[in-house]
């Protein structure tokens, strides 16, 4: 790792820009050994992002159109995420940062920062695949999550359990996904401040909230923290996880130009 980690804190933006910037940072980093970048950002209106292989059904797309919800496609794996009242983190780092850079090893590194940040907020969170007895991650909980993921990869991400979830007790709080290119890895994930249950039901049906096993910071803290509080906690978490100071930076010209090019490809449709 370099001497510092670049920190980008972005104003709320539309979905295609948010996703294109993550990919641009990854692609720029993948062709040359770059520094690690932590980016924290928000969304200017509710947006659905679909994983690279997610199949979106017509009915969901029609509901999004009806409700003015943008839909974008991520480069990363995973399912359907509704980005609304949340802080999104993304971390891009060179594979050389860690010797073993398997999917789970990378999740452990990045999620450590998120977990430490959540603890600063007073939340005892944990990564599902952390602290397993077997090195290959084949314990019962992970196996059950993998089965669930296979069955429901085209579904709402928070309705699916994954070994890479950050949970509080048995409730899922943070869902994340990775994209990997040549020499670099991108991991991004959502830290929901509050769920809009009405919106969830309109999009995914009433069943989505019946006996739901996902939660938000507001539900856990009984008070919704401000975006600034969450951003500050995550910054501290990543600083500790990487044992490096975060230094506020900006996108390079190369990254901006690449993001502009990528942006148009990210829209499935936009509602304005």
């Amino acid at each position, binding site marked *: 790792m370099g001497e510092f980690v670049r920190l980008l804190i972005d104003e709320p933006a539309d979905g295609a820009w948010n996703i294109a910037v993550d990919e641009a940072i990854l692609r720029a980093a993948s062709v040359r050994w770059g520094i690690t970048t932590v980016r924290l950002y928000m969304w200017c209106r509710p947006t659905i992002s679909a*994983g*690279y*292989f997610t199949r979106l059904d017509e009915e969901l797309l029609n509901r999004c159109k009806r409700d003015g919800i943008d839909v974008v496609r991520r*480069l*990363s*794996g*995973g399912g359907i995420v509704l980005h609304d009242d949340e802080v999104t983190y993304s971390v891009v780092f060179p594979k*050389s940062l860690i*010797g*073993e*850079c*398997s*999917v*789970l090893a*990378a*999740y452990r590194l990045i999620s450590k920062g998120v977990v430490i940040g959540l603890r600063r907020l007073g939340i005892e969170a944990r990564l599902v695949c952390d602290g397993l007895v077997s090195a290959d*991650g084949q314990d019962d909980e992970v196996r059950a*999550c*993998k089965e669930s*993921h*296979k069955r429901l*990869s085209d579904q709402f991400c928070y309705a699916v359990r*994954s*070994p*890479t979830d950050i949970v509080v007790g048995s409730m899922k709080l943070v869902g*994340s*996904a*990775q*994209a*990997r*290119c*040549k020499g670099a890895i991108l991991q991004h994930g959502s830290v929901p401040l509050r769920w809009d249950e009405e919106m969830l039901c309109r999009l995914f049906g009433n069943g989505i909230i019946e006996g739901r096993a996902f939660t938000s910071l507001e539900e856990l803290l009984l008070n919704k923290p401000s975006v600034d509080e969450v951003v500050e906690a995550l910054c501290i978490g990543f600083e500790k996880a990487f044992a490096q100071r975060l230094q506020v930076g900006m996108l390079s010209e190369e990254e901006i130009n690449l993001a502009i090019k990528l942006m148009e490809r990210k829209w499935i449709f936009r509602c304005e």
Partner: protein
Amino acid sequence: MELRFPDGLLYSPTHEWVRVEGNFATIGITDFAQREMGELTYIELPDVGDHVEAGQPFGVMDSVKASEELYSPVSGTVVKVNNQLVDNPGLVNQDPYGDGWLIVVEMPSPDEVRGLLTAQSYVEMLRREGRL
């Protein structure tokens, strides 16, 4: 289980292997690459007739919550695609050098593979990078 890197194949720094027969290159991902990804859930491959370029992406694979691009070790035209992987991407995990092959590319010349690594030099590269 110990990773396997069969002699007689060539390897790329982006963890693909190549089996050369005349002007035809069968391409897959190495045992190391499949272990790094974990159990694969989807694979997207080019169509027969598509052109692939050495060092450029030709497909994408997906495991539990991670996608990774596949890079072609050679340039040429795709002449065969392993369609079994659509329904059973796990074949890549089970048998990366056999039933888990990805595509066959017809190269304009066998010189295309010049610069690829032998099994020994690929293993040395992994060790140098601290990944073995």
